[in-house]
């Protein structure tokens, strides 16, 4: 297998699967279930995950692989995110197999869009060329714009989609501007070349400006304050499994990009962006947590919580060196596991019609859906950061990285924030387990999805996320080992090839 093909393997598999899904979709009669397509998509995703694992084995042996004239680089770092994205997509697909009820069509398109979108995310993580990053980002963004508006019957869905789209494009413009300025400052759009170019640039101001613009653009994608405003509205309107997906996988990819750009593109300006990220992290944690305090809509509350978690994650960025990267990667993984899990449960409990929306609707849920409630409680505990869950270890790791680099006060702010945060998680948690007030039934059975036994696939998905969350908390050793190994890679990524050499001089 040629190196080029090898570097593309997971993306390629996903793309092919997506195309297959689209091709087969018209062959299924309109009224029939689209589940086979789902299984196909699941199969493809699993395959791409295996491919990513294969890549990992290869890179373990040979070190980083570059392909396509140095536009993409497959190293531990990118493979880690490939695996993560593949896992998130897999779980999301499994969890949403039953999500689309029959009168609602487009299930086939849904699967295809998820597959294509994840291809874009994977490209984001593995590319070391900003153009490629941009294209990947657009692929993932556009597919999520569409997915956000998938429940067209709901007025909120199209609103959510529109908000996401307009503001996303707005932020993309900033990101793009940043790339342009970067190009202006260094004459290149390859990350490694940028790093070299910055060393002797004539116009450091331009580079700073570029840095700021890129942080703005990616800050929007990871929903860090003050670029978080879209998050609550979009998450609230979007279907629960999609929110699970888009609050984790594209974010993980965006974080990967941010890590790569900051650590290997702008290492020279580390002090400059560290302070910036410090501020953004504090702002995100605080705004996210405070905003969530008063929410009544569960998805909206979790949206604010995801803002806060972006803040926690950014804390890791401020820890220079491998520690920070390792911690950020680990946190991304744990966050993905627990958040996807939480949204999967929400999807299972409230169904496509989203009967249970507000916290009060969940009062006494434990009596009716004990397993789902227990799982949701577990994910919420992990989000709070209770020990022996991934959320705790992630938080622990992030903050120990921060303290290691001397950011004790950031850690104090962060952990105090996580204290505030537990209030709103607990409101939901306590609601789940409180006995409902007698005589005042919280949700009539009609608005809820029928309390069916969830499908094996969804059960598997839930079990997988729960186990992953638990395993990351109790035996984080393996993943830790991986992230620690990969943490040295972004800094050395990208051997400047074609792009760094001055292209043809017209004269």
């Amino acid at each position, binding site marked *: 297998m040629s190196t080029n093909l090898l570097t593309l393997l997971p993306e390629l598999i996903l793309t092919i699967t997506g195309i297959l899904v689209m091709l087969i979709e018209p062959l299924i009669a309109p009224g029939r279930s689209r589940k086979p397509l789902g299984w196909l998509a699941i199969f493809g995703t699993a395959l791409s995950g295996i491919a990513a694992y294969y890549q990992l084995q290869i890179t373990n042996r040979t070190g980083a692989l570059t392909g396509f004239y140095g536009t993409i680089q497959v190293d531990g770092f990118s493979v880690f995110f490939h695996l993560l994205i593949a896992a998130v997509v897999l779980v999301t697909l499994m969890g949403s197999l039953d999500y689309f009820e029959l009168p609602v069509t487009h299930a086939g398109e849904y699967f295809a869009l998820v597959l294509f979108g994840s291809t874009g995310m994977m490209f984001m993580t593995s590319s070391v060329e900003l153009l490629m990053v941009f294209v990947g980002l657009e692929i993932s963004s556009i597919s999520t714009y569409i997915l956000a508006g998938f429940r067209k019957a709901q007025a909120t869905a199209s609103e959510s989609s529109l908000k996401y789209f307009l503001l996303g494009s707005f932020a993309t413009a900033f990101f793009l501007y940043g790339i342009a300025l970067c190009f202006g400052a260094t004459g290149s759009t390859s990350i490694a070349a940028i790093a070299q170019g910055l060393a002797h640039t004539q116009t450091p101001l331009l580079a700073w400006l570029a840095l700021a613009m890129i942080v*703005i653009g990616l800050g929007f994608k990871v929903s860090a304050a003050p*670029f978080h405003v879209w998050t609550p509205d979009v998450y609230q309107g979007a279907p629960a499994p999609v929110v699970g997906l888009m609050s984790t996988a594209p974010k993980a990819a965006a974080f990967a990009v941010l890590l790569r750009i900051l650590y290997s593109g702008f290492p020279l300006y580390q002090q400059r962006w560290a302070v910036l990220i410090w501020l953004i992290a504090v702002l995100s944690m605080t705004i996210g947590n*405070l905003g969530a305090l008063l929410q009544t809509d569960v998805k909206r509350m979790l949206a604010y919580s995801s803002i806060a978690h972006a803040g926690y994650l950014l804390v890791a960025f401020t820890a220079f060196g491998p520690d920070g990267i390792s911690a950020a990667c680990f946190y991304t993984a744990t966050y993905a596991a627990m958040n996807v899990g939480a949204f999967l449960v929400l999807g299972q409990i409230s169904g496509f019609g989203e009967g249970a929306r507000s916290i009060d609707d969940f009062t006494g849920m434990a009596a009716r859906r004990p397993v789902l409630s227990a799982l949701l409680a577990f994910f919420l505990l992990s989000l709070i950061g209770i020990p022996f869950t991934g959320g705790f270890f992630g938080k622990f790791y992030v903050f120990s990285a921060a303290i290691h680099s001397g950011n004790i006060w950031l850690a104090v702010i962060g952990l105090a924030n996580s204290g505030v945060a537990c209030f709103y998680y607990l409101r939901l948690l306590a609601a789940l387990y409180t006995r409902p007030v007698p005589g005042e039934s919280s949700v009539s059975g009609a608005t809820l999805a029928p309390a069916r036994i969830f499908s094996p696939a969804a059960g598997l998905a839930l079990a997988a996320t729960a186990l992953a969350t638990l395993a990351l908390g109790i035996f984080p050793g393996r993943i830790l080992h991986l992230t620690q190994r990969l943490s040295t890679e972004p800094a050395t990524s990208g051997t400047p090839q074609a792009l760094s050499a001055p292209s043809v001089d017209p004269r």
Partner: protein
Amino acid sequence: MNPNLLWLIPLLPFAGFLINGTIGRKLPRPAVSAIALLFTAAPAVLVAQLWLYMKSAGAPDAISVVSRPWIAITGFQVNFSFAVDHLTLIMLGVVTGVGFLIHVYSASYMAEDEGYWRFFAYLNLFMFFMLVLVLAESFLLLFVGWEGVGLASYLLIGFYFTKDSAANAGKKAFIVNRIGDFGFLLAMFLLIQHFGSLSFSTVFAHVPTAAAPFTAICLLLVLGAAGKSAQIPLYVWLPDAMEGPTPVSALIHAATMVTAGIYMVARCHVLFDRSPTALLVVACIGAATALLAATIGMVQHDIKRVLAYSTVSQLGYMFMACGVAAYSAAIFHLMTHAFFKALLFLAAGSVIHALSGEQDMRVMGGLRKRIPVTFWTMTAGVFAIAGIPPFAAFFSKDEILYQAFISNNPLAKLLWAVGVLTAFLTSFYMFRLWFKTFFGARRFDEDALAHGQSTHAPHTDAAQGTSDPSTTAEHDSGQAAHPHGVHESSWIMLLPLVILAVFSIIGGWVGIPLAFGGHNEFEHFLHPVFSTLPELVTPEHFSFRDPEPILALISIAAALLGLLAAYVLYFRSPGRASDLALKARPVYSLLSHKYWVDEIYGAVLIGPLLAFSRFVLGGLIDAGLVQGAGSAAGSSARGLGSLVRRMQSGNIRSYAGWLALGAAAVILFTLFGLHPFHP
């Protein structure tokens, strides 16, 4: 004699308590009383044996036993250890002897009571703790007994727990005693601090050479003693304690428990001798209490309350004796007091029994003929307490007054004067009681008594056990249970009376001072314990310049004066007393309201404390500050949260506005921000 038998002395009553306390309810009454009596008699026998041994020639001054440690930490250890010396021996004799007699008496007195088994269990429990108290060889073990008798007292005062006044009185007794214990505890901490031990032997051995805050320690101990022995300012619980059954009043609140304070002071005399200040305080408290209680006792109508105040007053005498370092006099009076006060209470109980529960002296009278045995025994007690020779208290009281007079206390003469005045008052109110109860016209309604209805006391109307037990509120309910005419008590009750009457007469003869030709054997007996005192007056040193005979004459005169006054006011012309009361209305009212001490305590201490707790602590601090801090933090977080919510207006354009502003801020910060590491 095997010293390990010492363990048995307190443990036997405890066994009785365990048996009666667990299965007593299921046992027949005779079995209950048999158990209780057996386990009280056995220690009495042991004590008698001990006494014989200790009196025998060549016996050690003290014997002791030590067990495994009770509390053992590095640097501090307390064992269970008992010791018997002559002081203890006297106390043991009093406790087991009087205790046994009162057990006997109770077997009949409480015969009709529903809580029979409970009563005897408690009594045995009391015996256990009291014996621990007197046998204890360390402050801590003494404290065990100290608290334990308080517990027993609490349980027995509140024996008729369905009655609020009884429950209140029990609670009050315990809490007031606890105030005393507070002092005792602090004193123990100071002792540990300066002596490293609480063992009597260790502490006392080092007292002469140690530099410790003896005054502080002693004053704290005095606080403890004042609580237990009902001295100013903590005497208030004892009169209320009369809510308990009469045998309890006799045993606990007259003969034994209340004297624990005196015993403790005597036991710690080595400490007190180092602190003249503390001694002075003790003497003043004693004298003041004696006088105060005697004045109140003059106007009480409840027969038991008169005796209660008289107890307080007599305890004041003993305190005063301790205060002038006349410890053996104090113990002497303690002993005689145990006899005659137990007698008085039991006789009063017999009177009450005769009148089916009536306690008010105003409705008694003329009982002399109806209950002759009770009358004669009571007479012995009254003469004894009044200090008429040759009854017991004459010698002991006289010894106290004499010691007060000759002591080097700066207030010696004043103390003596107060003592004599109190002697007069004591004589007066005791003969008042005597006349009002046994002489004069019959003031009770015999028919009503015969039908179980008292004209006076509404609480005797429901027979115990026949109606809902929870609504039955009886006062010495055993008495109301068998309504019949005025009658003499059974011989089971009278026998202890007679025995105690004999002791009330002859009990003082063991301490006849040299001045009256005696040998003061009592003091000799206690000499090993109080050996730090100056050598006893021996016949060689005796001289007739000694004021003792004159002082004795003065106190006899005071007693006779009291008898005369009572005779005039209550026998010759019974109306004159109330005329006098009307004339001196403010004084009378002050006395009959017990100087309003309870009310003052309520208004000055308890009321403000409760109000402070409720409004300042509960309202202001707990609800306001402690809870408020939490909710303030919560609501400020919510306030900030609602600010964040307001950012989220739902309008895309405003979102873009935030984005633009944020972008500007980020750019601005990146370009010009604080860069601590960057030039």
